[in-house]
């Protein structure tokens, strides 16, 4: 009987965690380049066996998280340094803590003409940070970035944006500020203009879908309620059992 209370409790706890994850998704519904997270509970295949042995109560549940890397919609901004990646891949930025990867291409220029992220970290090209030469005297202050990520300023090619590809995106962990940190190897390459295309003047919206998150929130809230009812009913039954011995 006590086990039943634990089982109902295991229905409560992952849902609380899931609500926190959904709350974060919904808070970031307007965050450029944001990728939604989700939590799922996995029941281990040998739970039945473990339970038969009498020690399988809660050990049979795994709470797993995954990040959904599906593409957000493209939003036209018209700014020359707003970039979006259509297709797979990430921009690479050099931060004091090492290289970070992002889908947020809301870039700007630093005083010395280096292309930087909105926090001021240099965006990496194939040969390191991309610096526009002679920015003070640039007579033609036009910067153009083509579909392959080639940066052209003042009619000259300055560099090519590095696009990091991850065959296994599960190595990416979130680091805040729409940055990802890689736990494993990346394959750094450039946009090929076909399967990975750089769009100048566009930003990638958050891939959070309000309706989907709402449905999940209703589902988990109802699931939480039934687990709570189960627990109360288990508690009531135990109460009755305790009354049996009374004279």
């Amino acid at each position, binding site marked *: 009987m006590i086990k039943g209370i634990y089982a109902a409790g295991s229905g409560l706890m992952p849902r609380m965690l899931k609500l926190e994850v959904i*709350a974060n998704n919904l808070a970031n519904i*307007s965050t450029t380049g944001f990728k939604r997270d989700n939590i799922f509970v996995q029941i281990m295949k040998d739970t039945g066996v473990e339970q038969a042995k009498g020690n399988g109560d809660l050990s049979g549940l795994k709470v797993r998280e995954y990040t959904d890397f599906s593409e957000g919609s493209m939003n036209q901004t018209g700014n020359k340094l707003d970039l979006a990646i259509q297709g797979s891949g990430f921009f690479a930025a050099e931060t004091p803590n090492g290289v970070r990867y992002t889908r947020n291409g809301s870039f*700007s*220029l630093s005083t010395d003409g280096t292309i930087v992220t909105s926090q001021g970290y240099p965006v990496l090209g194939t040969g390191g940070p991309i610096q526009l030469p002679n920015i003070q005297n640039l007579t033609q*202050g036009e910067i153009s970035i083509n579909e392959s990520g080639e940066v052209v300023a003042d009619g000259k090619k300055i560099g090519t944006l590095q696009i990091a590809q991850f065959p296994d995106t599960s190595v990416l962990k979130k680091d805040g500020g729409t940055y990802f940190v890689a736990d494993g190897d990346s394959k750094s390459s450039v946009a090929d203009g076909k399967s990975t295309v750089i769009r100048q003047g566009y930003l990638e919206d958050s891939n959070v879908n309000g309706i989907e998150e*709402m449905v999940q*929130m209703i589902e988990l809230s109802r699931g939480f309620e039934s687990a709570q009812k189960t627990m109360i009913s288990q*508690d009531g039954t135990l109460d009755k059992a305790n009354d049996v011995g009374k004279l």
Partner: protein
Amino acid sequence: MNRALRTAATGMFGQQLNVDIIANNLANVNTTGFKSSRADFQDLMYQTLKTSEISDNPNVQQATEIQVGNGTIPVATPKSFAQGDITPTANPLDVAIQGDGFFQIRQPDGTTAYSRDGSFQISGEGELVTAQGNIVEPGLTLPSDTTSVSVAQDGTVNATVAGQTTPSKVGQLELAKFVNPVGLNPIGGNLYTETPASGKPILGAAGSEGFGTLMPQSLEASNVDVVSEMVNMIVAQRAYEINSKTIQTVEDMLTMANNLQR
């Protein structure tokens, strides 16, 4: 659970700021030379929770990491410097820039500010000034007996004086442009000041390479697109609402949890 409450609150705060910016854009839908802003958001830091897990082999304990985010933060409100519509006004002192560039305006403190608003006037001293009375660089003074003024596409200002039939050149307007105009700091009054992010101004004549041309007797309308602002407002309102639903759900669940103990 409290984290979910705080996370949803950051979402509501962010959307409120989003609506503030949309409201300012819509309020300036008829402001000459106005450039619309948008709110840029980023996710806050993530907290890594370790949950224990038993693998298929009961002797091996593994830890699974779950990252839970803490919400969102507005980081910037970049402006879009997309061209606004050119509206003819028939006023000889109205000038619109078609393309890149800003007029240079000398502020009362001597520093230079930059503007896309070309609704100029003539001061009592015959100087070309903005509607607020600040001098348009590089400082043009019209003869006192001027009968008509015209501005050419390259910024040349010609004046016809009384008793003459051919206009004579008074001076030339110079444009300034920036490598990263988004980095400019808006100070109100349709003016911007340079910042480290915008870079130094690059000066040049209108119509020269990389600079826009001047459209005489017209003004540049605000580049606010009412339809897309309305769409953004609906999106922001719904996002605000959905974050408030999160708070409601957290509250319901906490009530249920509190009711566990009878």
